[in-house]
């Protein structure tokens, strides 16, 4: 187990390093310096600017400065927002994005699992068809379409919820709904198919035969095992939620990390793009690492130390 965790940990560091390097190489591949567009600066100003951002050093030195800045979690100043550093933006945006993301993933998990279990218990019944219709629609409708639909119907026409921003719990309903529907649909489908499989197992018949209450059979015996596939795709779902926050935050004008990221893309603010990309990637890769380990701990059928043989 310890060796497996170490191996996964090493892979995680390697992946983050590759992303960081890729980001660096790509950003350096852009012709010209980031300051070329601004015509106002003269030679001296330009040189000072370049020195300030270490752009006068040879690329390999820049690369090591960059790696050091990542290792020390200091992503440097923003080019287009002179008064704030990338860390400032992350510090301001991340708590809001994390709040939105965590609420969304919890909503997606609970509603998805409940929908999936109900569909499996009423296999080929009305509830099953209804739940699966919701699931396929949820997968097919892109989150930005859903978001605008919700704003139009429930905020503008209905007036039930505020249109945008992130202040009170009422403000959180629509963004969360828009963000959580896609993952919820995926979880519902997965839970349903794995529940259907588990329900045919002998130990379920056994549990029923010994007269256990139906809800106990479902929750204690079936669901516990049926949830394993859901755990495996948690990492992917997290990635989906995270990238989903880019558009959701843009549409609802939520001042989270995604909004800064999108802004930095549109303004070609390279340090911010680099910093947020590396931060996002490291966050995701770390989450995947945790999911992998959790999976190993949860499923006794997986002997982790055997996997080292591959």
């Amino acid at each position, binding site marked *: 187990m310890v060796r497996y965790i170490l191996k996964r940990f090493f892979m*995680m560091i*390697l992946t983050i390093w590759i992303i960081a390097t890729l980001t660096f190489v790509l950003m350096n*591949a852009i012709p010209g310096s980031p300051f070329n567009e601004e015509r106002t600066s003269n030679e001296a100003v330009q040189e000072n600017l370049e020195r300030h951002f270490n752009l006068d050093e040879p690329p390999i030195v820049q690369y090591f400065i960059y790696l050091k800045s990542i290792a020390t979690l200091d992503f440097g100043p923003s080019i287009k927002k002179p008064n704030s550093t990338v860390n400032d933006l992350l510090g301001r945006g991340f708590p809001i994005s994390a709040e939105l993301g965590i609420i969304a993933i919890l909503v997606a998990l609970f509603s998805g699992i409940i929908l999936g279990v109900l569909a499996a218990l009423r296999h080929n019944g009305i509830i099953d068809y209804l739940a699966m219709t919701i699931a*396929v629609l949820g997968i*097919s409708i892109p989150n*930005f379409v859903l978001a605008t639909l919700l704003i139009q119907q429930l905020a503008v026409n209905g007036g039930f919820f505020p249109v945008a921003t992130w202040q009170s719990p009422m403000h959180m309903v629509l963004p969360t709904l828009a963000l959580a529907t896609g993952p919820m649909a995926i979880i519902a489908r997965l839970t349903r198919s794995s529940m259907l499989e588990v329900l045919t197992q002998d130990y379920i018949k056994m549990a029923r035969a010994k007269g256990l209450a139906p809800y106990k059979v479902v929750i204690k015996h079936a669901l516990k095992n049926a949830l394993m596939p859901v755990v495996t795709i948690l990492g992917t779902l997290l990635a989906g939620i995270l990238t989903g926050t*880019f558009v959701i935050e843009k*549409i609802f004008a939520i001042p989270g990390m995604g909004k800064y990221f999108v802004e930095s893309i549109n303004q070609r603010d390279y340090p911010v793009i680099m910093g947020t990309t590396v931060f996002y990637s490291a966050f995701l890769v770390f989450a995947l690492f945790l999911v992998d380990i959790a999976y190993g701990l949860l499923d006794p059928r997986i002997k982790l130390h055997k996997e080292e043989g591959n």
Partner: protein
Amino acid sequence: MKSQTTQSHDHIDPNSKEIPLDWFKPLEGANDSANTVVRPSLSYWKDAWIRLRSNYIAMGGLIFLILLGIMAIIGPYLTPYSVSETSLANQNQPPSSTYWFGTDNLGRDVFTRTWYGARISLFVGIMAALIDFTVGVIYGGVSGYKGGRTDNLMMRIVEILYGLPYLLVVILLLVVLGPSLSTIILALTVTGWVGMARIVRGQVLQIKNYEFVHASKSFGAKTSRIIRKNLLPNTMGPIIVQMTLTVPTAIFAEAFLSFLGLGVQFPFASWGVMANDALTTILSGHWWRLFFPAFFISATMFAFNVLGDGLQDALDPKLRR
């Protein structure tokens, strides 16, 4: 009966290795109706088609996609307007008999633009799927067929690529390369083929140990022939399913990128670009500008998803009832 057999044995020289031809006479009554094939034999693909045909939802998806393809080709020619033709007099017109889907804030015909958008979105989706298919099949095929250390190394690379956050890499590439139709397709496929490679590799690893492959090998078939004739046709099912699921992913990704300002650029118009442009005016009640592109994105993704599900059921021999 018995005497007859002994009789025929007397004829031959026990040292001869030749077997007399009259030993091979068909058994009496062997040619009766029990042995004739009554029904026409079904190939794998025919069988799959029959099962797909009985799946109404998947067929609905297929028919929708065929109609969409036709409209993408002929749709823009059904109106007198061109895709980028602006008309100041006809800004933000609601759908009417002159403008079937209305016009946008520059007076451009939404109907014409919707089918142009279909071209772009379908092109992006299908190209991404085809490139993923080519790279993934070659990479996964080689990895699975070679096995051993080669497989190990190739799969380590795939594992790392698989760990990279897909859309972040795509965004990063587009920021650098600049958004255009070709760079979007390139960015979508740089890491997109990994899923396909994993599927193909898993299938090849399994199938290459089946008896018919060994038989083929013992008859002296070359590696290329084994891959082309034995392995690929038998992995086609999961590959096709994966491709039908790649297309909506790519279409979604393109629309998503348009939302970040990284979509296809003027004068092209994809559904994502149209929806993004319409977003700013949603509060002014010009619903048609958002509705049509959004509807077709969703419907296309829905159609591909249900078709993919249907194909999965139809092509997977294990699910046969």
